[in-house]
């Protein structure tokens, strides 16, 4: 090797390789450590406050010890229910539109709109739904909060459902059409069930995304320290 003219050069390259490895591994290690630390802190510190009362009791007046978040849990579920009832049918129909008009100018335009919707900061959604729903109804409500969350969920669910529809083999649709099934029935009864697991996953992720949202609800469902199961009432959700 000593006689090899490339030996010295190779040594330098090898050293550079090791340096690079260290240079990426160290920051990556910091990231992983930091992320683990955050998780641990949230779980450990939060865990101390959890007991059965915390889940099943109402909030106590400020200054009194104890109490729970049952009104926040109920509020979360009610707002989510409204959001899903709106978001699921609309996202399914819209992604079917994208599926049926694949490649067309209109579908591409629509996809752009969906992507842009997905980038709208959730606080802006809250402000607009305040104008659309809260002002005409003259009250904050679980209903208004649900509408705001449905708009958070829609674009995410549309793009995910569209992807799972696109993954269904074309031969399924072609076979159904060849048997003389009308196109809409072939789509609804063959393609949609074949994509069912993807649709379910999209709904799940939509719910996950919406559950953690806070900003769009401050101006729509507002918050209520008391337990209320009326969709027209103010509702308190867990994060807020």
């Amino acid at each position, binding site marked *: 090797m000593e006689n090899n003219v490339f030996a010295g050069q190779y040594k330098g*390259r090898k050293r550079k390789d090791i340096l690079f490895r260290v240079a990426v591994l160290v920051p990556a290690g910091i990231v992983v450590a930091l992320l683990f630390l955050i998780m641990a*802190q949230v779980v450990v510190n939060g865990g101390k406050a959890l007991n059965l009362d915390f889940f099943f009791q109402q909030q106590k007046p400020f200054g009194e010890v104890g109490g729970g978040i049952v009104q926040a849990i109920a509020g979360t579920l009610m707002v989510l229910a409204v959001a899903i009832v709106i978001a699921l049918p609309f996202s399914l129909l819209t992604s079917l539109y994208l599926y049926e008009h694949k490649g067309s100018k209109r579908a591409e335009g629509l996809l752009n709109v969906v992507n842009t919707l997905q980038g709208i900061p959730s606080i802006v959604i809250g402000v607009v739904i*305040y104008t659309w729903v809260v002002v005409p109804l003259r009250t904050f409500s679980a209903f208004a909060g649900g509408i705001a969350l449905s708009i958070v969920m829609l674009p995410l669910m549309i793009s995910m459902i569209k992807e799972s529809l696109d993954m269904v083999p074309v031969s399924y649709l072609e076979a159904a059409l060849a048997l003389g099934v009308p196109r*809409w029935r072939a789509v609804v009864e063959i393609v949609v069930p074949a994509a069912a697991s993807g649709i379910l996953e999209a709904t799940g992720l939509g719910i996950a995304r919406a559950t953690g949202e806070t*900003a769009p609800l401050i101006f729509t469902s507002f918050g209520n320290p008391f337990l209320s199961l009326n969709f027209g009432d103010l509702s308190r959700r867990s*994060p807020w």
Partner: protein
Amino acid sequence: MNDRRFNVLLSFAALVIVFIFAGFLFTLVVQSLPAAKQEGAAFLYGSEWNPVTTRFGALPFIIGTLMTSAIALVIAIPLSLSAGIVMGEYVNSGWVRSVLNTLINVLASIPSVVFGLWGIEVVIPLVRKLALLVGAPPYGAGILSASLVLAIMIIPYMSSMTREALVNVPAGLREGAFALGLTKQEVVTGIALPFAKKSIFAGILLSLGRALGETMAVTMLIGNATRIPKSLFSLGNTLASVIASQFNEAASEVHRSAMMGLALILLVITMIAGWFGRTLMSKGMGAYGK
């Protein structure tokens, strides 16, 4: 039901989506008119925001938004790129990879209020100590605290998008390079990164979009002062945080309208970042490494 009606139904749903978007722009423009009329162009560059004297200039919040997002990016980019490179190029063991993926996915889905609370518990005391060291006012809250937590919030997105971009580099390119005797570092910096750079840059821009619009964590950490931030330790406000903290308490019609204007500015900024990112993304997925 027949094919024609089915199509009408689908088109109706598609139209609703388009109308929602158009309605957003329309509502924000109409609602912000009163403030825009009162302030004129000064709404964009005025540096005074005072609901009592009804002066509304958005500049402190535009600067606050751009400043926190920029600092967050500066912190997050090197960390996320390294993490993405390690996950995409260096981790070969299946279970380590799946643990890292799960960790990143879980952190990407943690609600932002939780990050806000964590920031109050952990970051604010640290920043306070740092401020005492350098002799700045030790508020704790402020631009730096908000930027740090923003950085931590976007790291999961950015690193998983970097990883995705690297994993999508065709195996043939990499194998050819190794066959020519290149070292791992040469393959990564000479072949994989140049090939994936557009997708990586798009990932950065999409993360920027998130940072710009992030509301709750920032509202809890930035100190909510309606002045132009002078240093890293100043209290400040972003477009999103001022809306969150003042909208429900709006004292007058003009005040509320001014906040609608802030929402419009925020929407336009994020739309530009998102549009730019998506354009790059679609180009990055195209032909072999340009």
